[in-house]
């Protein structure tokens, strides 16, 4: 058991801290996330890439830092930047999903054309995967593209498309081979968002915010070379992309941060002159949640060790999303319940506590319980892949 990262990494941590101390003031505010990158964002991103704090392992020729993969350095960057409340550079699904996908499966030309401007924030991407009729069963997507005059012609609808309203481009899954089995009929295309025939409608969620969109396609034309891999290989490409996404939902660092905020709240707030922390019921709920958060934090350390040593243990990975998202919602639920009537205040109400984050997060966490594979799907996966229980038998086809 060795919980230190070693001297080399202590030095690296010092270096990161020094950087943050010197340059941290240039960091864009976190509230700007979810908007189109502006000059400040791009300048910060450029600086981060130069120092290897963003795009660390992307080759120089494509605009990255060109460093070697080093998990502990990545962890240190996360810890220090997050701890100091400093931006880790541009986000978005272009950088997190499309870039690694192109690096793995794109042509040389595609890599050269797309990666650098994406990293620099000059091209912002939206993701076109989900559809209203294809939720848990993503491979059943119905948005179609047929070829006409050397172009794919796309018709259909996507949903849950964050940043579609300001994105420059979209990577999208469409059904190009209607007669093939459902997983083999899909292609992965790249298209400009200003292509005629695209209509974007903001998708308001239960929190009242509209960070997602619905996107409608009517005879949207895309040149046939704007494809990653071959026709019908889109499902394989998408899975290559999805694997880069793992582990973000249910991250225990978020649980831990939420828990600390509830502790602070319960120390400060009183009802009938009694501090919430002095309520045995709410305190015990808090302590139970702390136990659950701790378990997930140490589970994360176990996963980090496995990643470092190339060890593969499935179960501790499989449970993160299910347990973490419910845990986060439960933490928010405690804050709401402890606040009582004050806990139901919303929007810009007088007496609002913590800017109303508890209600917003409570609902948003429910969204995360649903998104990225609902809890029902997660339990299927855990029982089948983790416990080796059989899939449900296929239903008899109706005569």
């Amino acid at each position, binding site marked *: 058991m060795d919980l230190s990262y070693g001297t080399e990494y202590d030095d690296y941590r010092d270096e990161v801290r020094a950087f943050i101390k010197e340059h941290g003031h240039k960091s864009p505010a976190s509230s700007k996330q979810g908007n189109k990158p502006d000059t400040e964002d791009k300048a910060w991103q450029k600086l981060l890439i130069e120092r290897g704090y963003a795009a660390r392992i992307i080759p120089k020729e494509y605009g990255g830092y060109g460093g070697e993969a080093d998990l502990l350095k990545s962890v240190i960057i996360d810890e220090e930047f997050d701890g100091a409340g400093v931006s880790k550079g541009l986000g978005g699904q272009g950088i997190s999903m499309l870039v690694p996908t192109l690096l793995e499966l794109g042509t040389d030309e595609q890599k050269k054309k797309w990666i650098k401007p994406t990293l620099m924030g000059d091209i912002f991407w939206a993701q076109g995967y*989900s559809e*209203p*009729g294809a*939720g*848990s*069963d993503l491979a*059943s997507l119905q948005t179609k593209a047929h070829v006409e005059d050397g172009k794919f012609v796309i018709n259909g609808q996507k*949903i*849950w498309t964050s940043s579609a309203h300001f994105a420059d481009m979209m990577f999208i899954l469409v059904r190009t081979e209607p007669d093939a089995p459902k997983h083999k009929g899909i292609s992965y295309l790249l298209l400009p968002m200003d292509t005629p025939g695209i209509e974007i409608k903001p*998708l*308001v*969620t*239960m929190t*009242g915010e509209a960070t997602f969109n619905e996107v409608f396609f009517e005879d949207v034309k895309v040149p046939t070379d704007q494809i990653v891999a071959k026709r019908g290989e889109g499902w394989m490409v998408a899975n290559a992309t999805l694997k880069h996404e793992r582990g973000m939902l249910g991250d225990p660092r978020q649980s831990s941060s939420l828990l600390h905020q509830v502790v602070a709240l319960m120390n400060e707030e*009183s*009802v*009938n*002159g009694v501090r919430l922390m002095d*309520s045995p*019921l*709410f305190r015990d709920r808090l302590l139970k949640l702390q136990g659950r958060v701790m378990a997930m934090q140490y589970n994360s350390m176990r996963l980090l060790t496995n990643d470092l040593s190339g060890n593969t243990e499935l179960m501790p990975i499989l449970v993160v999303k299910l347990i973490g998202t419910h845990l986060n*919602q439960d933490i928010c*639920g405690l804050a*709401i*319940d402890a606040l*009582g*009537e*004050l*806990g*139901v*205040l*919303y*929007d*810009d*109400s*007088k*007496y609002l506590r913590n800017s109303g984050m508890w*209600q917003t997060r409570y*609902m948003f966490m*429910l*969204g995360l*319980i*649903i*998104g990225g594979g*609902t*809890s*029902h799907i997660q*339990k*299927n996966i855990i029982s089948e892949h983790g416990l080796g229980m059989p899939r449900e038998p296929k*239903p008899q086809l109706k005569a």
Partner: protein
Amino acid sequence: MEFGYSEEQKMLDESIRRFVNSEIPLDRIRELVLEGTGFDQTIWNGLSELGVLGVIIPEEFGGAGMGFLDATIIQESLGYVVAPAPFLGTCIMAPTAILAAGSDDQKNKWLPEIAAGNLKVGLGLSEVTGVRENAGVTFEGGKVSGKAMFVIDGECADGYILAAGKSTLVWVAAGAAGLTKTKLNTVDNTRGVVELVLDGVEAELIGSAGSEAAAVQKVIDAGRTALAADLLGTSQRMLERAVEYAKERKQFNRVIASFQGLKHTCATMAADLEPCRAMVWYAAHCQQEIADEATLLACQVKSHLSEVSTPIANDTTLVHGGMGFTDLMGLHFWFKRIGLSRQLLGSPESVREEAAVLQGWIAA
């Protein structure tokens, strides 16, 4: 022995359900929530035409002279469609207060107006169950001062009944000099909850100063029982929507209602909710007929329905998948109404503590 609805109550139930289902569709909720007053004149007129605004007001004061169970039948239906209507404060809590503590003059002055739909009343008793932000109202020399928070149905009210301490009830007119009303935005915009700041505002005593503790308790009991009925309706509709959606929605070439995991989720909701129906009936019955049990039942029905409803709000949303998280299906109006009802007039935790004291399990 007949535990359940009478023939008349069945008819009442049907007519109110017909009304809310046809006259208060989701699209209308959507519009009204944007206004956020917790009131709509057309809906109110409709309820007035049904003759239910004076449900618990005796006929001699222009009411329908029906019972408390009739009132919860109506409240349940309003919860079922998350109706923005100040029925809880105006038609249940206010008449309970006036009948319990008011003089004949006051009954004659207010009750017929309420029954006719001309007078809407906000109820401020939050400080009786829990004080925050140093709120509280004091009565002296015919005037009230202080602060009343979470006044139920206050946004659209023409007058307020406030608890000044735990044993005094007063009437304050909307727009009275020295009165400042601030809307408290909550997650649930189907209800108009407000704060009143009072600076020497003229007030009319209902009953005698300092001797209406029983009446205050009765109003709170009535409010809690009605909130439980509202939760019953709200949760029942969520469950139904979960089942309806699951029967339509296909994934992996099957309606998702055929997946056992999802069936068990729905069955759990149904099993938890079904016995609540009889509990609400009994609690409502006690408010009128069994004084000894009225407060205990009000506490337990409010807290039990709150505990049952919260997971139903979550699981119904989960059954709808991503669609449940959007505004498109409007499910969240139900989700949020459950959130507010859970906390109004005392959180489940604090209400249960009252039940413990009431039963002599612990000292007050």
